[in-house]
């Protein structure tokens, strides 16, 4: 082996970092979904929208596999399959796209916002979906809003597709009137979690409160210099940047995972809003106490156990922080698809000092390190979970952590339970 073009590992201490964690950077074979998979939850979240993937049979097959062929109703997404004749000439591909969009809108009159989603093949043939969206918007004026973003695996990894989608919405957000202020929570949350946070913010007198993405794509939240931003998910860095360009202010905070994370998140918002910390402590006293009680049981089961993360959803760092600080677990290798310092600094500061962070992936060497270490539980993607179980390692599907409501006080114990269950199961089984 002389070639190391794709696989390289370096250990760096980034200058100016708030933490001195050594970071291993790797490039090589990856095992992660591409950004198209974000559609699987975004189409449920924004129920008046439709996602038209402009791609290949692989994209359609991937969406189907990621959704597990388990969605009974016709989903609010589909694929415009590129075929040989579309590749021959680009003008032709644009005509074809216009026809498919016409057919789709005729079939589904309920569509309020149509997202054209770019893919690896559409980007390689340089099919410009932004221009196509603008053109289609013109010809279907008034009837639907048509936007484009990229979920391509060339640019995005798994949850990053949500970031590019939300970023596409930013230029269309109405202007928040001058002298007004509002709080904007960025990153999709389960409706039940949104409602819990809304009740807490109401009690703190913080509002008006908006969420991005909204439950209906048509109800776009306003943004302006009076907007305070707080990230609810760790994968919305580009969206946050776009919102800041429109004058909004980012509130730096850890993510609302676990009791400590949720508390710090709420305190950070309150501080930015000028709400007294004493009031925050009073308002969250009951839910935090409730969460403590519920979490205690799982802390007992998890304490002292070793957990490793393979890179998948970007949730790895806040989850590692929660498991280490609130559940007493020991962190093995903590793999992340990419390290976004814009949002991650407050989290990095809370990680144990000896945490081994890996950014990117070179699959086989990473699996070898995992096998040598044999943690009590490994968080990984769907393609790897069963093979690792077959090797005697206990696993947790990373994807479940994206689909399950895990944020906020009342979900802290549910989050811990997701890690306790595989361990519990392994203990029960007699062979």
């Amino acid at each position: 082996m002389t070639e190391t073009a794709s696989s390289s590992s370096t250990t760096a201490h980034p200058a100016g970092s708030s933490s001195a964690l050594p970071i291993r950077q790797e490039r090589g074979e990856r095992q992660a979904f591409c950004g198209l998979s974000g559609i699987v939850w975004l189409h449920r979240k924004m129920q008046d929208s439709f996602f038209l993937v402009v791609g290949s049979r692989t994209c359609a097959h991937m969406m189907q596999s990621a959704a597990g062929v388990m969605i009974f109703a016709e989903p609010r997404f589909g694929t415009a399959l590129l075929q040989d004749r579309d590749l021959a000439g680009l003008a032709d591909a644009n005509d074809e796209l216009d026809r498919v969009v016409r057919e789709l809108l005729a079939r589904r009159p309920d569509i309020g916002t149509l997202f054209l989603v770019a893919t690896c093949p559409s980007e390689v043939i340089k099919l410009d979906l932004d221009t196509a969206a603008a053109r289609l918007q013109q010809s279907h004026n008034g009837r639907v809003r048509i936007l484009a973003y990229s979920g391509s695996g060339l640019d995005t990894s798994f949850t990053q597709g949500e970031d590019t989608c939300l970023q596409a919405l930013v230029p269309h957000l109405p202007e928040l009137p001058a002298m007004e202020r509002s709080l904007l929570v960025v990153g999709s949350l389960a409706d039940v979690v949104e409602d819990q946070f809304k009740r807490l913010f109401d009690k703190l007198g913080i509002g008006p409160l908006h969420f991005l993405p909204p439950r209906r794509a048509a109800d776009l939240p306003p943004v302006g210099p009076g907007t305070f931003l707080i990230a609810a998910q760790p994968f919305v860095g580009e969206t946050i940047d776009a919102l800041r360009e429109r004058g909004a202010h980012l509130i730096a905070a850890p993510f609302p995972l676990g009791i400590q994370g949720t508390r710090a998140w709420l305190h950070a918002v309150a501080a930015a809003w000028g709400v007294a910390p004493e009031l925050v402590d009073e308002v969250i006293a009951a839910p935090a106490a409730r969460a403590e009680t519920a979490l205690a049981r799982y802390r007992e089961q998890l304490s002292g156990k070793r957990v490793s993360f393979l890179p998948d959803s970007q949730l790895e760092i806040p989850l590692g922080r929660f498991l280490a600080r609130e559940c007493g677990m020991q962190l093995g290798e903590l793999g992340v698809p990419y390290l976004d310092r814009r949002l991650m600094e407050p989290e990095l500061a809370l990680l144990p000092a000896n945490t081994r962070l890996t950014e990117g992936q070179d699959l086989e060497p990473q699996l070898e390190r995992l096998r040598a270490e044999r943690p009590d539980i490994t968080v990984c993607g769907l393609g790897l979970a069963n093979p690792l179980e077959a090797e005697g390692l206990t696993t947790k599907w990373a994807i479940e952590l994206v689909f399950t409501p895990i944020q906020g006080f009342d979900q802290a114990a549910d989050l811990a339970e997701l890690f306790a269950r595989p361990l519990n199961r392994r203990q029960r089984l007699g062979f």
Partner: protein
Amino acid sequence: MELTVWTYEGPPHIGAMRIAASMDAVHLVLHAPLGDSYADLLFTMIARSPARPPVSYTSFQARDLGGDTAQLVKTRLAETVARFKPQALLVGEACTAELLQDQPGALATGMGFDIPVIPLELPAFTRKESWGASETFHQLVRSLLSGRPVPEGAGDPASRAKAEGRRPRANLLGPTALGFRCRDDVAEVTKLLDTLGVDVHLVAPAGATPADLVRIPEADFNLCLYPEIAHSTCIWLERMFKQPWVRTVPIGVGATRDFLLEVARLAGADPEPALAQARTRLPWFSRSVDSTYLTGKRVFIFGDATHVMAAVRIAREELGFDVVGLGSYSREFARELRALAEEIGVEALITDDYLAVEAQVAELHPELVLGTQMERHIAKRLGIPCAVISSPVHVQDFPARYAPQMGFEGANVIFDTWVHPLMMGLEEHLITMFREDIEFDDGQVPKRRPQAAEVSATGGAEAGVPEHERAEARAPAAGESEVRWETDAEKELRKIPFFVRGKARRNTENFARERGIKVIYVDTLYEAKAHFGR
């Protein structure tokens, strides 16, 4: 461009992965962007495979495109051979890589590996999964066997075996990872052959190594168990090595008998003892009076060509059903399917458009759908009983128990699998018949149950209505507004079993519309019934 919601087949490189994942000591290097590794979960999550498929990806990203993606391919090739030490290396590319034109196959051939390297052409924008699997298997067999001598006595299996003083032997070709019940079919066919005194020489691609494939010509003949995968390989082997091959796929009682006769003829064996000891309950169960209600059940069949053609024969000859529609996504076998459809007086639906299949099922409103996972979803939504007979499959189609489709035991499994959903239908029918009985009446609060607070006058009725009926009630096309159902007629309609109710509703409304009848009374319903017959 073509709009699709679900797809029956993946792209051709998924077919190549299925061959690699079926075999031992083979590795596939795929030039593909990051997201393509999703395909691993087909094997590890759907088929619950305990090992990752032997596939390595180049996982290129946008930043690699400006640079040298070809170098990335060479690195991955070198790493893969060094790490996994396969006996043979398959090299292919996914759709995006095809557009880059890096030609990974040519790169691999030039790297001087001391193992066979098989470059695959997998045109992602024109071909699909089954084609990719068939082509990969064919290319693998071809490159491993090219230039090898034709064994002495080839072409005359019976005399060759006798001359060599051994039992005749056959290769089982076609079973693959993610195929429909392949593992159990292989076991069943092996038993079946043994009753004829025929040995299995080797099974491929499932479980074979490249070294095994080299021994293919040593067998006297081939069994083409899954034509979607093995047809072109069987034809090539016949041409190059004079190996005859068996055409009949032994799914169903009749086909299994034909299969035994065809194999016996090739092997020079007497089929009678094997036929005499055939153990299957299907013929008797079909004759038993309990099965009378199966007579003329209207069935729609869709799936891969092999399973559809087998299912048509079983449905008609062995269960006494009426096949009201059939189709397949296997375009490669469209001619055979069309001929079969014409023979039984229907038109074959050759498509991979899930929406077209759904439209036809809704139109025909059959009493049973035999299909793939997609048809299971369609049937569920339309409230029609369904059994899965073909790929594409889901995790539940990889049962822990022994459940072959082929051979006599396969016929038993098929009888159960197809008839049970109809029996559930019968049960629903009985419940509907006794709807007015206090035991079954949803509107009544049952005396024996504890005070059911949640069973309110209206909400309770809604909660008690089976899911498919609510679905039907929600369905928009419940009759154009110009024809109105009078209350008693509507009540009467609800007494009709749910699986024919949709059809009865449509027939009655058409009957009314044709005669300019504005309101449908109970009599109109029965007049329409008499008019259309059954």
